[in-house]
């Protein structure tokens, strides 16, 4: 009898401990590197992905309360249906009727990026959200207030505890959670990828476009990311209202004047407008710049000194190929939608 009691107590004790452990440990989330892709640059050891961290990041990403007047979230300018760029806007819209000086870049495959923004001024993914959160022409809030608002919210308190344990909510944990969400935005399942994997075939115009692309575009827009992450001057004239010299502002080196990061072309068909300031409203505008309108100066990229000859016929084939980079399984993945939704509801974006 006594032995039975002891055994029972022991079993209850073990079960209790197991319960505590289950309750405290977040569930690991696997980051899958697509076949043939290089290893990511982001150090997952310092910020291990978990289901709880991802869900917290997702909630933060879609939370308009992070802005000064609760009108703008990260998702206001990074919309899933627009490839996590802004549908239709050339320049991003900020707090209190302000405009930024740049076109919001699409967010995908960020684990392989070393530097962020069109000028590469931000050198770590975790540091990236600090800029839009605090810029007066973006979300316009102070980090103190962001942390204050979050710390008062019971559901955030619960979620931070679930993701990071019983530690104070601070800037570091906030940005790590946001990173966990955006790191999972991997786009690697477009028709192009399927063709490369042997699961689909290009139709004729796509195939011809792919050949033209490899001849004339791929030295900068390199597969599999469709960018080589370099900064280049593509002969874009300075806009006197924006005065945006790009990379030069970061390096203070005049050789970097008007250099901007080569953007990825994944999902390019749905991320118009194009260019660092969204000056091109269609792919046709972009082709027209490269074959005709661009201004050659000393700083123009050496690969573009003679512009890019493109016939009307070729631009059609190129467009057909670029459309194969649209990844609908990414654009419609319910995992990336606002918490509680399968797709972004229409009322979420009204900017």
């Amino acid at each position: 009898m006594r032995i039975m009691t002891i055994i029972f107590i022991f079993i209850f004790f073990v079960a209790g401990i197991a319960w505590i452990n289950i309750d405290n440990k977040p569930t690991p989330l696997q980051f899958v590197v697509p076949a043939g892709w290089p290893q990511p640059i982001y150090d997952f050891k310092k910020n291990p992905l978990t289901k709880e961290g991802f869900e917290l990041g997702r909630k933060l990403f879609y939370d308009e309360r992070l802005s000064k007047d609760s009108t703008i979230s990260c998702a206001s300018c990074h919309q899933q249906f627009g490839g996590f760029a802004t549908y239709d806007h050339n320049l991003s819209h900020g707090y209190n009727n302000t405009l930024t000086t740049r076109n919001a870049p699409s967010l995908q495959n960020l684990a392989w990026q070393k530097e962020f923004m069109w000028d590469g001024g931000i050198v770590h993914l975790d540091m990236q959200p600090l800029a839009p959160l605090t810029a007066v022409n973006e979300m316009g809030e102070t980090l103190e207030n962001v942390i204050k608002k979050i710390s008062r919210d019971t559901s955030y308190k619960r979620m931070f505890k679930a993701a990071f344990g019983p530690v104070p909510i601070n800037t570091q944990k906030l940005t790590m959670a946001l990173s966990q969400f955006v790191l999972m935005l991997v786009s690697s399942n477009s028709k192009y990828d399927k063709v490369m994997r042997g699961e689909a075939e290009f139709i004729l115009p796509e195939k011809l476009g792919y050949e033209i692309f490899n001849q004339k575009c791929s030295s900068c827009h390199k597969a599999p990311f469709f960018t080589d992450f370099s900064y280049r001057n593509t002969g874009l004239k300075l806009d006197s209202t924006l005065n945006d010299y790009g990379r030069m502002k970061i390096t203070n080196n005049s050789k970097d004047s008007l250099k901007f990061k080569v953007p990825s072309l994944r999902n390019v068909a749905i991320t118009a407008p194009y260019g660092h300031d969204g000056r091109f409203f269609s792919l046709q505008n972009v082709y027209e710049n490269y074959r005709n309108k661009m201004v050659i100066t000393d700083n123009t990229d050496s690969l573009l000194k003679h512009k890019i000859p493109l016939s009307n016929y070729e631009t059609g084939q190129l467009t057909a190929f670029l459309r194969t980079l649209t990844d609908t399984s990414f654009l419609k993945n319910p995992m990336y939608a606002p918490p509680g939704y399968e797709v972004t509801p229409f009322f979420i974006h009204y900017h």
Partner: protein
Amino acid sequence: MRTWYFASLFVIFLIVAGFTRSKSAVTTIRFKNMVGNKEMVLFDEMYTNSFGEPFSISKFRYYISHISFIDVNNKEINMAGNYYLVNEADSLSKIIQLPVASAIKSISFFVGVDSARSISGVQTGSLDPMNGMFWTWNSGYVFAKLEGQSDSSHAPAHGLTWDVGGFRQRENALRKITLTLNDNYTFTNNTITINADVLKWFDAVHPLKIAQSPTCHQSGKLAMQIADNYSAMFSIAP
């Protein structure tokens, strides 16, 4: 009975030993921000630099990192990895306590944050970007900040805003400071007081007039010149 006697003796010994150790094992560094030979007052006082330019001070902050000591036996005691934000508006921030017991001959530290730390993600504590010493658009810490107003300034609102930083090559504003204590330096309560004279920001190495450069908001030449100047502002208080 005898056992009890020895036991209580032992306990008393432990307590006394604990006290002695905790007392001697701390060296305190106190930063005293000065304007010339007067203690700094924020907002309310008008000061004049050596060019005759008047100015008032609203913010005065700097990062102190990687403190190390040389003790009287020429042994180096390294406190690497610690970062302190000295803020004139926060009196506690001006006192740094370190677990160092030996008698000190000299002290070194960096003003600013090293490049390794600047690029390895979002930090906490004194390095939390929330402290307002971080450039978000061009990642990096503001190493030191002097802000105020001056009638000599042509910037908006007559602002004097010198935010100095930069960890990249060719624009590195990180500066190492070494201060040697006099042979007959007398410690009071194991405290070393370091004066930091803001007037040196204007003229210690490069003459920098408010009228010419009232604003420094990014790394580069001006930031490095200000850093050269302020690295001469520290001295051991007599």
